[in-house]
């Protein structure tokens, strides 16, 4: 079980010689730590909520394409299939209307 220095928080594995000599910060008191995880493991376990999926709840969608970032797009397939007109929501929240699609001759 790893040990953490009570003074600086540095973690030492069980049996580490530093435990006998004392911590590099000069601290000589250590306490047991249960289940220390790597920072990468902790980060990987955090559920990242995609803001693009939640921020528009309850909002009426008029945009057929939403630009989230450079190279990332949300496509509203239902609107694209039902309507000829293409409305693009840019990442700054402004809208662009694709005029040729609005004036497309109905067959």
């Amino acid at each position, binding site marked *: 079980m790893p040990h953490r220095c009570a003074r600086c928080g540095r973690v030492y594995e069980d049996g580490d010689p530093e435990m006998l000599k004392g911590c590099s910060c000069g601290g000589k008191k250590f306490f047991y730590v249960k289940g220390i995880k790597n920072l990468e493991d902790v980060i990987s376990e955090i559920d990242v909520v995609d803001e693009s999926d939640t921020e528009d709840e309850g909002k009426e969608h008029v945009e057929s*394409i939403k630009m*989230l970032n*450079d*190279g*990332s*797009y*949300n*496509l*509203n*397939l*239902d609107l*694209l*299939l*039902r309507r*000829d007109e*293409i409305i693009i929501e840019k990442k700054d929240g402004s809208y662009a209307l694709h005029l040729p699609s609005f004036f497309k001759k*109905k*067959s």
Partner: protein
Amino acid sequence: MGMWSSLRGRFSLWVGKIFGRRSVKIGIYGPPNVGKTTLANRIIRDWAGEDVGVVSDIPHETRRVKRRKDVKINVDRSSIKLDIVDTPGLATKIDFRDFLSYGLEEEEAKKRAKEAAEGVIESIRWLDDLDGVLLVMDATEDPYTQVNITVIGNMEARRLPMLIVSNKIDLPTASPVKIIEAFPQHTVVPISALKGNNMDTLYDGIYEHFR
């Protein structure tokens, strides 16, 4: 749009049937990486001896619609002439970061994402000019996806003849039954476009649905 283009399509099909010379325009649709281009290549190779497009494991390989005219398919003693329209994959979200794991550079991945988004719109535009749709699904994946459900609902509203193709049945995890159970109102044909399994059943289905 839906009712008129449907009537026009049916009239045009009927005229073609009477005079027996018009090709039936069939679009191959579905999400990315379900094997649409593999299927288009299989059909065209079987009956015209050539390929229509490049196949790869990276999603959104096909980003422009590709069309091969006058592919004549013989079924029993009859035949049907098809225009095969291979379309880019339909998706609700396209993120360049998904392509980075395939070894693409960031700029290349962003360009691919942009072209893929344009490809979705081009695919949808083509629906107005088609006589029928082959909707391809991956038999190893859950069929209850937003793309599948949205596309099927819209095809039904357009009254566009549609055949569901359950592809990749050569893979051990394939479960075409799931697709059959998910969409019982439609004909589902399980195939492997890659291996050529059950293609005769698909050709029979194409003839029955789209002639």
